């Protein structure tokens, strides 16, 4: 036992002559993978419209309750968030919001340099979150898949849908 302890001490001592693995951060930077869970963004669908449909699932999935939003809709029935707020001073970057999002709207990105001297500046509103692109998922468009009619897409025009039922027909 004693010998093993001494050996441990000796081996530890030898580490004195190893190269340190530390990356000296502000000067050197690590390249992070695309799925790194950093700064949260709201993306747009391929048509350039907001992907978020204000379903509240990110908010309810958030373990620190740092997402808050209010749904509203335009005159054609398309839902979107009236406001969308993330309090990054509470966010733990767990990525549950991204997992919960049924429309790929909310995504975590490899950006992580978000420190602020004033805590209030860590509260991000929709204008800070919304980006002009589809993020990691290029082709998905929720309203093309869902059965809801919105401006520019009537009933039965979504993917995998039959035209609306003709109620006057009694044919089988």
């Amino acid at each position, binding site marked *: 036992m004693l010998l093993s*302890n001494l050996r*441990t*001490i000796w*081996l*530890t*001592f030898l*580490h*004195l002559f*190893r*190269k*340190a*693995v*530390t990356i*000296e951060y502000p000067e050197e930077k690590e390249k992070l993978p695309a799925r790194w869970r950093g700064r949260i963004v709201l993306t747009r669908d391929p048509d350039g419209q907001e992907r978020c449909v204000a379903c509240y699932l990110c908010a309810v999935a958030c373990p620190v309750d740092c997402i808050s939003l209010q749904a509203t809709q335009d005159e054609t029935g398309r839902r979107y968030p009236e406001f969308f707020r993330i309090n990054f001073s509470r966010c733990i970057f767990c990525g549950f919001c991204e997992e919960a999002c049924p429309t790929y709207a909310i995504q975590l990105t490899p950006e992580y340099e978000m420190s602020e001297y004033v805590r209030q500046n860590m509260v991000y509103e929709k204008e800070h979150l919304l980006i002009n692109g589809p993020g990691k998922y290029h082709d998905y468009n929720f309203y093309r898949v869902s059965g809801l009619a919105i401006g520019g897409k009537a009933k039965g025009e979504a993917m995998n849908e039959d035209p609306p039922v003709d109620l006057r027909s009694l044919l089988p």
Partner: protein
Amino acid sequence: MSPLLQTIIITVVVLLVLMTIAANLIWVERRMLALWQDRLGPNRVGPLGLVQVVADMVKIFFKEDWIPKFADRPVFFIAPTIVIITVLMSFAVIPFAPGISVVNLNVGLLFFLAMSSLGVYSVVLGGWSSNNKYSLLGSLRAAAQMISYEVFMGLSLMGVVILAGSFNLNDIVEAQGRITWFFIPQILGFFVFFLAGIAETHRLPFDLPEAESELISGFHSEYSGMKFGMFFVGEYLGITLISSMIVTLFFGGWLGPSFLPPVVWFLLKMAVFILIFVLLRAALPRPRYDQLMSYGWKFLLPLSLLNLVVTGLVVLLLK
């Protein structure tokens, strides 16, 4: 120069040097631990991160000094000062070089033992006055640990006393000049004293009174600001003290080839042992509490008794 003035100057110089060492140990320990763990450690503040100490000091002085409502205030206040006082008092008897010691006491060794036993009050009172079950558990562990290791610490030194024939530390160093450095005849004594020293300063791997994985932070869980800082500095002073004692008792104190002055020899030897303390922390895991106790009573105690008996016999036979 009057003897009084000389004593005062020595005292002040010793205090300054000790406090500087203790403070810089913060940096030394962090840098060395980092190196042994393949990291870099604090390297941002000043050249090589040396000014880190200043940053740490500034920080700890400006931290909120919070006392829990449920604490026993007077005792809570006194506890951290005890550790500083007792350790600094012990340094009074250490001969750094011929003639450079605060006081040349003929029972210097006993004084050291007495002071280091008093140090346990700091931990016990600190844990008790915090009125927190984890603190109390930590301080109970500290008490039991220190009382146990006190026993063979004393016993392990008796070999040295027999060899030197004196309790005066000056005489012990000089005796080593005559005979040989005591770590050779007293290898067992050195071994036991070193281990007991680690336990006395509750350094890793014997830091069970703190044991953050079990007891939050043990006896000083409730301490913050400079009061916590005092425990911290006390610990580094303790390391310095034990290292100085090892040097004094087993490694010939200030003795050494004359191309360097004696004080430098003393400090160099001391530095080596301080680094060994840090190395131990880097290398060894913490044992269980029962392992610590049985190791002490069932292994170190017999070993120190054996050492005492053998040393006595050898000295008797050689006479």
